[in-house]
C-alpha cells in the first residue's frame, strides 16, 4: 500500500512538474500507438469488410487463422521483426532496428489481426444483409460500401480502440525492436519495465497510472459514443 501511495504521489508530481522526459515518453507512446493503429486500420478494416461480406472457399479455416493471429505472442513477433531488421537480416540495409519505425512495424503486426478480426467477425454476420439492402434499394457499389461502414461504425470504433489499447500497452515486442533507448525509443511500457527491474517502484507505478489514465479516457470516449448510439 505504501508503494502505491508513493506511486500516486510521484505520478502527480511527475505530471505537475511537466517533466520533459516523462512527457516525451508519453508523447512517443501515444504517437507510435496512434500511427500503428492508423496504418493497421487501413489494412485491417477494408480487408475485414471485404472478406466478411464476400463468400469464398476455406472461410472457416480463414476465420480460425485470424482468431489465432489475434493472440500472437508479442515477444515472438518482436524477435522475428528484430531478426528481419538486424544488420544481417533480409531488411538489415534499411537500418531500422532500434528506431520508432521498427516499433510501429512490430505493433502493426500485432494489432492488424485484431482490427481485421473484429471487423471481419461483424462483417460476416451483418455485412451480407447490409449489402443486400444497398443493392435492392438501388445503391451504387460506393454507396453500398458507405452504408456498410455507417452501419458498422460502432464495431469499427471498437476495433480501433482495441487495437490502440493493445499497441499502447505492448511491452515485449517494442522492447526487443526498440531497445528502450532514452529519448529515442523509450515508451511508457518499457519505462515501467526498466524502473521495475531497477527497483524504482514509485516511478514505475506513476507511469503505470498514466497508462491506465490514457486507457480510461479512450474507453470513456468510446463508451459515451456507443451509449449515445
Amino acid at each position, binding site marked *: 500500500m505504501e508503494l502505491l501511495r508513493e506511486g500516486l504521489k510521484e505520478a502527480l508530481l511527475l505530471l505537475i512538474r511537466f517533466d520533459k522526459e516523462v512527457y516525451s515518453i508519453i508523447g512517443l507512446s501515444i504517437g507510435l500507438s496512434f500511427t500503428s493503429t492508423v496504418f493497421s486500420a487501413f489494412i485491417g478494416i477494408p480487408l475485414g469488410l471485404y472478406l466478411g461480406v464476400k463468400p469464398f472457399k476455406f472461410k472457416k479455416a480463414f476465420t480460425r487463422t485470424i482468431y489465432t493471429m489475434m493472440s500472437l505472442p508479442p515477444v515472438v513477433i518482436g524477435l522475428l521483426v528484430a531478426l528481419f531488421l538486424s544488420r544481417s537480416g533480409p531488411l538489415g540495409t534499411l537500418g531500422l532496428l532500434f528506431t520508432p519505425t521498427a516499433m510501429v512495424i512490430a505493433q502493426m503486426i500485432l494489432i492488424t489481426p485484431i482490427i481485421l478480426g473484429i471487423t471481419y467477425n461483424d462483417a460476416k454476420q*451483418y455485412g451480407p*444483409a*447490409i449489402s*443486400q*439492402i444497398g*443493392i*435492392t*434499394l*438501388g*445503391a*451504387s457499389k460506393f*454507396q453500398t460500401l458507405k*452504408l456498410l461502414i*455507417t*452501419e458498422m461504425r460502432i464495431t469499427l470504433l471498437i476495433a480501433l480502440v482495441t487495437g490502440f489499447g493493445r499497441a499502447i500497452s505492448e511491452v515485449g515486442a517494442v522492447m526487443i525492436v526498440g531497445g528502450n533507448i532514452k529519448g529515442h525509443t523509450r515508451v511508457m511500457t518499457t519505462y515501467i519495465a526498466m524502473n521495475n527491474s531497477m527497483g524504482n517502484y514509485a516511478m514505475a507505478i506513476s507511469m503505470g497510472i498514466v497508462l491506465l489514465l490514457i486507457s480510461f479516457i479512450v474507453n470513456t470516449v468510446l463508451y459515451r459514443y456507443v451509449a449515445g*448510439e
Partner: protein
Amino acid sequence: MDINITNLVKKYHHKTVVDIDHTQFRSATIYGVTGDNGAGKTTLLKIIAGLERYDAGEILYNGNPLEQGMMKKITYLSQTPYLMRTSVYENIVYPLKIRNIDPMIIQNKAKNIMEELQITELKDQLATQLSGGESQKVALARALVFDPEVLLLDEPTASIDPATIDTIEEAITKRNKLQKMTVIMISHNMDQVKRMCHEIVYMKKGKQINIKE
C-alpha cells in the same frame, strides 16, 4: 415492363435448385409464387433481384439483359428485412437520398408513404427497436418510396398480425393498380394469394410447374 426468363439454371454445390425452361412475368401483374420449402422460390426471386448469380440461362428485362443498373427499378423485400441503425424516417428516405432527389420531394414522399402505411407516429423512433409488424411496414415503405417498377416479396406478411397484413396488402395492390407495378410475391398463405394475385406460379424442385390465372 416484362421479365422473360429462358433456360435459367442455378446450382448450389452441384445440386440444381432452379431449373426453369421459360417463363414470363408481365407488366402490372401480381404473381403469387407458391410451392414446398426448398422448391427454389427464394432463389428465383434473389436472382431476379440481382442478389444471386446464376449458372446458365438468360433473364431479359424489357428485352434487355438484366444488369446492375436495372436494380434501381427492381426491389426485393425479405421476410426479415434489415433496418438501418437510424430513425424510421432516415430508413425510409435512404433510397431517395442516394438518388439525389430534391429534399422537398423527399419530405413529401416520406410523409405520404408513412401515412399510407400508418407509421407516421414511428417517424423518429430507432428502426432497430420496432416490433416485427412495424419493421415490415417500415421496410415496405422504404421499398415503395422510390416507385420501383418491380416489387419482389418473400413472404412479406409471415408472422404478422391481421391488421398489419391488411395495411401491407392494400399498399401493394394500390401501387399495382395506380402505378402498374409488377409484384412477384412468395406466399404460403393461399387465401392471401387468391385475394391479391392475378396469377399463381407453382414451383416444385426448382422447376416452375405452371402459371394459373
